[in-house]
């Protein structure tokens, strides 16, 4: 049987297109193997919690993937730089970023900045850094010991924050709103100044990450820990009560925990994301590494790709619900 010429041409085109598609289609998950160094963007300076965790995890990840993992610090704008750079990066698996939430959700929702965080390819959690509230014990200043007592405050409670760029701002504003105490936020403190501010009684409360570094005023008796924003007490700081225990179940939400999450650029192919996710799961299950990272007070709690993506959506929604409040402090 003779095949019409037009048909043979069509077949040829289809075959060529098929060959071309095969050539450009990414290889299967098992086939993707990185062949050059992978960069992890960290939006904060060297030595911080996010940086230290990234460096420790990067070392193990490097052994698992067989290529060097380089940490690139791009500090500034409350971690925003890593978001912008990641958005411009090629979705080839060689650039990933540790991104701080809910701080970056504020930039998207309340400041209207792009990109939409939901467009990134989220692969899992680096660490959780729960926040806690500490109150001054200086004589002559208002002494706050529980959330219920704070609700009875007659005048606004002076709360110190660093600014409107990082995680402290949304966590402070949203938790105050959920508890319902009158508050006046005083922004502009540098991190360490929040501790001296509490000791001096310039501010009466402040929210900070629950790590050893930020609990020194409690050790010295200059401050009292009022609440930790976790569903259960922190194993390393068991004396600090949770908001749930004090009758505020909403304060146990995972969206109120500072989260450092790993993302790849938007539209990263699934096979690449799966390889990186698999490496991250192994990294997070490394017991010795977990112990080192958690020595600082952070929590290593692996989170799947799907759950990470859901957490992002939840955080954006929570920040969205509180946007009018947050906008009071963003000009």
């Amino acid at each position, binding site marked *: 049987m003779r095949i019409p010429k037009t048909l043979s041409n069509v077949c040829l085109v289809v075959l060529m297109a098929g060959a071309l598609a095969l050539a450009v289609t990414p290889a299967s998950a098992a086939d993707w193997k990185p062949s050059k160094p992978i960069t992890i963007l960290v939006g904060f300076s060297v030595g911080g919690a996010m940086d230290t965790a990234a460096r420790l995890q990067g070392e193990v990840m490097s052994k698992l993937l067989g290529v060097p993992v380089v940490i690139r610090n791009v500090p500034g704008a409350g971690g925003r730089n890593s978001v912008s750079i990641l958005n411009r990066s090629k979705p080839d698996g060689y650039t990933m970023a540790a991104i701080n939430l809910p701080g970056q959700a504020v930039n998207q929702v309340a400041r209207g900045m792009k990109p939409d965080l939901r467009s990134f390819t989220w692969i899992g959690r680096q660490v959780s850094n729960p926040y806690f509230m500490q109150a001054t014990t200086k004589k002559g200043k208002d002494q706050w010991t529980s959330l219920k007592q704070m609700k009875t405050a007659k005048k606004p409670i002076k709360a110190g924050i660093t600014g409107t760029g990082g995680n402290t701002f949304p966590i402070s504003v949203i938790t105050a709103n959920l508890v319902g105490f009158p508050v006046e936020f005083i922004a*502009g403190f540098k991190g360490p100044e929040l501790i001296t501010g509490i000791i001096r009684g310039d501010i009466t409360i402040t929210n900070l990450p629950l790590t*050893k570094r930020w609990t020194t005023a409690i050790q010295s008796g200059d401050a009292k820990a009022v609440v930790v924003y976790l569903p259960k007490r922190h194993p390393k700081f068991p004396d600090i009560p949770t908001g749930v225990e004090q009758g505020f179940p909403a304060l146990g939400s995972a969206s109120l925990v500072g989260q450092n999450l790993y993302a790849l650029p938007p539209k990263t192919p699934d096979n690449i994301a799966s390889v990186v996710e698999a490496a991250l799961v192994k990294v997070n299950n490394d017991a010795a590494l977990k112990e080192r990272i958690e020595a*600082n007070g952070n929590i290593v709690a692996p989170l799947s790709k799907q759950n990470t993506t859901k957490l992002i959506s939840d955080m954006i929604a929570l920040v969205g619900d509180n946007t009018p409040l947050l906008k009071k402090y963003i000009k």
Partner: protein
Amino acid sequence: MFEGFGGALVTISEPHVILTLCVGSIIGLIFGAVPGLGGILAMSMLLPFTFTWDAITAVYLFSGIMGASSFGGSVSAILLNTPGTPVNAATCFDGYPMAQRGEAARALGLSAGACLLGALFGLVILALLIQVMRPLVIAFGHPEIFWLVVFGLVTTATVSQGSLLNGLIAGGVGILLSLVGLNEPTGLIRYTMGSEYLWDGIPLIPFFVGLFAIGELINYSAQGGTIARDNIQASIRGAWQGVMENFRYVVCLLRSSSIGTLVGIIPGVGGETANLIAYTVAVQASKDPGSFGTGNPEGVIASEAANDSKDGGALLTTLSFGIPGSLAMALLLSIFIMHGVSPGPQLILDKPIFIWTLLNGYVVSNAFASIVGLLAARYLAIITRVPVYYLSAIIAVVSLSGTYILRENIWDVVLVVLLGILGFGMRRAGVPVLPLVIGFVLGNLAENSFLLTVRIHDGSYLGFFDSVISWILILTMVVVPLIARLRTR
């Protein structure tokens, strides 16, 4: 507290520790001397390697880098009018004119001596006060910081060589530049032209590299010749003379070291402030303020003594409160925490050996850097006789790549070039650079501490006057120039 001293001395005599300290000091010297790099970059690059080390060795490496980088920064400030790190900015103003007079070796000796003596001063204060320093840290709140910074700002007029009007304009421009970015107390984003790059303001390192290194580079290229206009005294004797001159200006040395230690103790003020305040106080207190900026040895001593003594003050706050006074201290803290050592009040009681390890390492690395500097001074001084065309090319490559490496942001390089043009224009127009630097470094700090004081005191301005320290600072601001004026008559 003193019981850990013996243990720390034993560790420092071990060969691998000596090697670590020497390596740390050399790295600190090199990274300090290259504009744009600095000790922080060296520490952050080496941080991952130290995770698996024992804590004592890691602390020695870091104290070696910290101790030596400041002197390294003064080498390029004196020889090339380009501060290796922002904390050496004030060293340029008198160190470089000395180099132009052919006295580079003497200026390097002055700096080596001031670095070592300033560091020793800061550490002695640390050792003496560590258990009783709490009231001092708490005494400095935002009103006191405001007055301290205002003290630095009002000296803009005094340090304006030539036209007072030019100096005031430069100071004003510096303050305006410091206002760029997100103003945290008010939540306003100012003068960023919609750019996220400027959200955190004009970054410090590109500012200094541009204004000094590139500005000077264009100047060299326009002028030609060599840096030293006179014959150079490139001898070890010249350098030694510089070291010994520190004792001749002992009042300036002690005063600047005290200022440096105090600024170091106050969290949030920043290392780049110490050298500028010490320098401006030296000008105010001098019988001959007009000689500053023309190669007055007191200018070099004031800047470098304050630089190195500030680390003692910052260590005091870092170790006893767990509050890092600077990025270098934050790095040190993370090393401590990674090795299970928690900074805070208990550290002094539980693990004094760590404190002594740090102090020993810091003293030895400072001494090492100063000796190396002293021995190398006569060779380094020869740089001032190299034709500037060659130097320009080297400075351009080193400073621009150094700036880029730091954050891998091309806009930093663009900013360096723009500020270089500004620096060159100012030099050509006879507008002094120092007021611009003072305005830039202190302007934002003054505004922040002003706004925070008012907010903390419920909108009242009385908060500025309700502490003894505020009054001491106000009175000093008035009295010091008066005494200086009376002495000059």
